[in-house]
């Protein structure tokens, strides 16, 4: 089974004060630490587990600059066989352009199964997977939290709201967008990443893919980003932990919670 996994490197933004860039269309990224997009980490793990069971190869693909190769090395260390970085140059990309670039690249690669994460953690569109499947004419499913695969068909569980799963059968080749929690992504050591340095990591320029100008034209533009409007928000309880604890217990009593 030839499996392609689309991955992305994203900034970590929890417990960080974000600063808006002077152009006001993104945040300043110089000082941010980066990780593999959480959903993609589960997707690559799922691909490797499928390969371990059914055989085949796992190929990791990202669109990004040299720094983004870090996530590809990580995928290789986890057990991917090869990796491709598509260099976008100065291209302005929305989900449509991203999906077009990925589709054009993947058309030239053998693929029985394509996995993506449900969404990227920074901009959370959750659109690229479905668009990519449409470009490639592949069956697809979103928010998948379980996959059981045979040659021609997969039985999948899609996570709906309120703890309900939708079980369905989908023809293969297919594209699945993977939800967090589907598996336990394996640990990656520094040693493992070093060992994987010998594996194949190729760089492809977006201009070599033969895409038309219209395919590279973003259909949505970020005009402006801004801080959320001020709300009343929480009333902060100040003081040492003992004082805070007293206040919390007082509130519980006031709200009629019996302790």
């Amino acid at each position, binding site marked *: 089974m030839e499996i392609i996994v689309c991955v992305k490197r994203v900034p970590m933004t929890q417990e960080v004060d974000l600063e808006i860039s002077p152009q006001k269309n993104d945040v300043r990224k110089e000082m941010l630490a980066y990780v593999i997009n959480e959903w993609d980490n589960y997707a690559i793990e799922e691909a490797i587990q499928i390969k371990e069971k059914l055989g085949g190869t796992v190929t990791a693909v990202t669109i990004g600059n040299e720094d983004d190769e870090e996530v590809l090395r990580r995928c290789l260390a986890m057990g991917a066989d090869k990796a491709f970085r598509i260099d976008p140059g100065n291209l302005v990309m929305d989900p449509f352009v991203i999906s077009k670039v990925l589709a054009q690249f993947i058309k030239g690669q053998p693929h029985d199964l394509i996995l993506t994460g449900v969404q990227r953690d920074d901009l959370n569109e959750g659109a690229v997977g479905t668009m990519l499947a449409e470009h490639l004419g592949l069956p697809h499913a979103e928010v998948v939290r379980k996959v059981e695969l045979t040659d021609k068909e997969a039985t999948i569980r899609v996570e709906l709201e309120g703890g309900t799963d939708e079980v369905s059968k989908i023809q293969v080749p297919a594209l699945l967008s993977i939800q*967090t929690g589907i598996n336990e992504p394996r640990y990656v050591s520094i040693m493992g990443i070093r060992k994987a340095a010998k594996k194949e990591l190729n760089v492809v320029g977006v201009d070599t893919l033969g895409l038309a100008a219209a395919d590279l034209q973003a259909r949505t533009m970020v005009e402006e980003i801004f801080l959320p409007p001020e709300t009343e928000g929480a009333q902060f309880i100040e003081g040492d932990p003992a004082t805070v604890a007293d206040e919390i217990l007082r509130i519980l009593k006031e709200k009629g919670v019996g302790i």
Partner: protein
Amino acid sequence: MGEIFVVAEHRKGEVREVTYQMLWKANDLCQKLSQTLTLVLIGAKDEPFLNDLKERADKVLAVEGLANFNGDLYKEILFRLIQEHKPLLTLAAHTPWGMDFAPSLSVKLGYPIATDCVDVLVDNGKPKALRQIYSGKLFSKVAFQDAPGYLITIRSGAFPAEKVGDHKGEIVRMPVPADLPRPVKQFVAFEDAGAGEVDITQADLLVSIGRGVGEADKVPMVKELADKMKGVLSCSRPVVDKNWLPKFHQVGTSGKSVKPKVYLAFGISGAFQHVAGITGAGCVIAVNKDKKAPIFRVADYGVVDDLFKIVDALKAKLA
């Protein structure tokens, strides 16, 4: 006058709340953009909710004869309806089902799409989308490249669900087209993934943990506090993803909606999917190290500190 489409989401004979929320916003947009409101209802026939829905739209296009949701068939049916009616704007839900058909529909139509939007603005007669990015820490205003029509998927809970406007919706019934492509995906069943030994929906006090708890070994420390307080332990999604607690503890969109008198949130950042599950809570007290964590925007009381210091202090008081 042109149309604005709203694609209804319904499941097991019930309209999903997000449908009413989209209708509320579409009503507002119809006034601002001088359009009429058309609800597209695929796959429901003579449902009791049809009468209620028609009072919320100028027209209901009821496409009859599809037993279960199927994203590919939704895409195909909507593609044909949009080509015929040419609505300026089509709203769909940003739910697992909406995510299944809306982005591919936009590709098939050649229309721009903005997903997971919390508001739709009108700027010089053109729709623009408002989105939350970076875990809700920032908003992003998105403009579209000029096109005959636009697609926007709406986050659940972004708008009120109440009935607005004076509509006497005309119901236009039509069968599912006979020449649809053969589906490549077959529905098997709905299954409940969340049942378990604890019912977090009935508790007066929920002591809830998030990613901030750090590791599985620390979960019992908070469980101990919950027991001491006669509360029930609950959690946010990352805790379940990491197998620190089983799914029946999970609060939020993909877990359970809860309504305790007090919700005590330890190390929960407050992703919207989580916050959506605690709107029924009487009082929310949040403890988090990050003063900018979105949970503080919805909490009644906030504590900026290491959660274990507060857990230990509470335990000491209750000893």
